[in-house]
């Protein structure tokens, strides 16, 4: 299966030649910039946000070159590409990984994995009555998490292994299109060290990035399943507890948000924080995307808002320049702000 290719094709189809190919690269890498965050919303690509963090620019370029050579995509110049006929038929005949949910889970994917691996290792050694071993996770936060789980779960040390086994197998059964091997062979237990990502990919005969994608898909499936059926997985439920959700704002944007709440204007915030006004404007766009109750009327009056939205709809575009040409008295910032606030609902 051509997983990565399929996702790139899907993204290209969604952005309809309105962005360069690197907007997709940034999206898959999970770049925390207003532009990328906005793209994820505008083009409904949120599930793919940040799902390929290990990918390098070089690897991405190579992938695109190969897709071009295999007639999956067409080069439109200016770093823009669209799916070719072959690419479109590929999209029609293959399913995208269905559980992947980068937007909601990319920040907890790593921590959940660390927790799972350490929990399994600890449970396995409890089961075999061995106390002397090297923990495969060094992160102290994960260690204290495991200790807490053992304390509060009220499961006796002798039962821990079997309970975990039962929940894991239950979690994986009936999973459509999921191969639990991508996760399970990487787990470490008593006298059995788990495989590295590279070794697991090799064992399953997958390319490194495709393996990563399947791994993420499977982990996101687990997270969703645990979330939806909490009472069925009393032990696994701890894996996803204690993460604060909606940490979508960048750190810098959060500082701006706090100042905004104190009544400072964007210009004052810029001079206070020694940042450019355009940076603060990027933050406002982030708020428009992520904070439901954030009102933009202060920055764009109502008439101009409708004008921008109408033009976007009529012209069938989200390209700022095209809209700007039609609505001359709007600034680029105002157009971005309106598209961020209302763009998604007007399009879907």
């Amino acid at each position, binding site marked *: 299966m051509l997983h990565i290719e399929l996702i790139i094709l899907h993204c290209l189809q969604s952005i309809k030649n309105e962005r360069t190919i690197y907007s997709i690269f940034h999206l898959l890498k999970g770049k925390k910039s207003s532009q990328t965050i906005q793209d994820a919303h505008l083009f409904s690509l949120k599930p793919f946000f940040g799902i390929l963090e290990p990918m390098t620019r070089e690897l991405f370029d190579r992938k695109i070159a190969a897709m071009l050579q295999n007639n999956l995509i067409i080069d439109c110049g200016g770093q823009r590409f669209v799916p070719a006929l072959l690419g479109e038929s590929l999209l029609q005949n293959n399913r995208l990984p269905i559980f992947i949910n980068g937007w909601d889970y990319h920040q907890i994917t790593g921590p959940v994995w660390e927790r799972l691996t350490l929990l399994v290792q600890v449970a396995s050694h409890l089961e075999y009555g061995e106390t002397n071993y090297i923990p495969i996770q060094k992160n102290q936060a994960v260690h204290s998490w495991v200790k807490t789980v053992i304390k509060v779960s009220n499961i006796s040390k002798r039962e821990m292994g079997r309970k975990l086994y039962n929940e894991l197998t239950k979690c994986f059964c009936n999973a459509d299109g999921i191969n639990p091997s991508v996760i*399970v062979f990487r787990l470490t237990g*008593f006298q059995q*060290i788990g495989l590295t990502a590279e070794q697991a990919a090799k064992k399953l005969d997958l390319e490194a990035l495709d393996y990563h994608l399947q791994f993420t898909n499977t982990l996101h499936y687990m997270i969703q399943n645990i979330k939806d059926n909490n009472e069925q997985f009393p032990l696994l439920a701890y894996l996803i507890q204690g993460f604060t959700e909606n940490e979508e704002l960048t750190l810098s944007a959060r500082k701006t948000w706090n100042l905004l709440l104190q009544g400072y204007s964007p210009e004052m915030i810029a001079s206070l924080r020694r940042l450019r006004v355009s940076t603060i404007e990027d933050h406002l766009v982030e708020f428009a995307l992520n904070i439901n109750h954030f009102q933009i009327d202060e920055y764009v009056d109502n008439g101009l808002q409708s004008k921008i939205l109408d033009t976007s709809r009529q012209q069938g575009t989200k390209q700022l320049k095209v809209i700007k040409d039609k609505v001359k008295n709007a600034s680029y910032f105002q157009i971005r702000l309106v598209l961020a606030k209302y763009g998604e609902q007007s399009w879907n």
Partner: protein
Amino acid sequence: MELEDLLLKHFGFHSFKTGQKEVISSLLSGCHTLAMLPTGTGKSLCYQLPGYMLDGHVLIVSPLLSLMQDQVEQFKRFGEKRVVALNSFLTLEEKNQVLRHINEYKFIFISPEMLRVPYILGILGKLKLSMFVVDEAHCISQWGFDFRPDYSKLGEIRSALGNPLTLALTATATYQVREDIIQSLGLSNVTKVESSVDRPNIAICIEELADYHEKEARILDLVQQLEKPGVIYFTSKKAAEQMAALLVEKEICQAGYYHGGMDPSTRVLIQEQFIHNQLEVICATSAFGMGINKENIRFVIHYHMPMQIESYLQEIGRAGRDGNQSVAILLYSPGDELLPLQLAEGELPSEQQIDWLFASIAGEPRVLNEQLRLHKDLKEQGGFTDVQWRFIEGLIHQMHRTVPMQQMNKSVKEFVAGRLTTKKTNIFQLKQWLDSASCRREHLLNYFGEMLSDQVQPCCDRCGVQLNQFFKVSGHFKSKPSDVTWNQYLAKILINSGLSE
């Protein structure tokens, strides 16, 4: 109570390893001690045991973060919970937490850069220290292969802490370096416990081959035949990866690679797979082996030449910890010394980088921030590697109170030039050893100021060694691991009796 009884009580061992008892007795009689003990002799026991008998805290300075973590974990595994590591792994919050409760820790590991923070030094100064331990003490000496500017301040720090009882530990140091350690720490009346660097159960062989093609073929051949497990050392990460892939592809053995460029969790997995015999051969850079306890390594091969004799000895010393016969084989082809020479230059900042840095900070009256560190942006803008940066930052910190700003550029450059000369000399000495016609073992011992007293058998290629005595006993090759399903795998690790019941 006899020392042996304490050993049994606290550690469950019946007897000391070479040198341990001498070091402990010396410390308990109140003497500063310099201990040169081969790696794998349980150095930490030398301060842990007296730590229990003396009143106060034990402060251990250690330059390698990963090693420090390992040691702390090891303490904890053996039931000592009053141990902590103060290093840059800690978040600010965790650091403050530790410092608030510093009194509760008997054993405090600390990195040298933490010690230069006056606030931290102040807190430590108020503690009653029973011992001041300097691990990897050769890092103090400019003559040493691993000089760290941070370490050269330890004498001053020790005196700021009220000159506590001191233990300096090293695995490999020449006579000159040992003298330097004593002088730099300001120790008088030192007991020296110096065990031999010789490892009689490791045969030493050097093979000269035409080029890297021949080397590669030779490695495939050797690994095929030699008794495993084994380690192959490389200077380049890429070469290590490629060789591991080749060994697997040719179905010669279960091989993996290990180097500093991998993420920490992957490194732990590879290391543990090797320890649990899931991997038979590791292709590694010098990053591999610190703090690893695997007793039955049967061979160490060097594909590239190390940077100095000290590293070579440390690396081959990972073989044969169980005392059984093992072999070290170094493959040399003409021109191999160019790679370490290049590397030596790359480890130090270039003249242009130094000029650039001083030009950039010339206008700034406060070059060093409150943590006494240079601004991080300068590192990126000047294109400094981590190693170069740590070096120059430590150096400027060391000089900034004694050398005026205008002269510092010149002083730094002179110092760097001096380091480069030392590194080149080290490489040259290793090359001399490779070229020498005399017994390999004798030459190595002479380098460390020792004489070869007993002839060992088998000794080295110069004395005559039959490599086939290290070959595995007839073809008992491991069959590939059988294919288990994910479900069986999970059951195996989580249910003791398997799924049979």
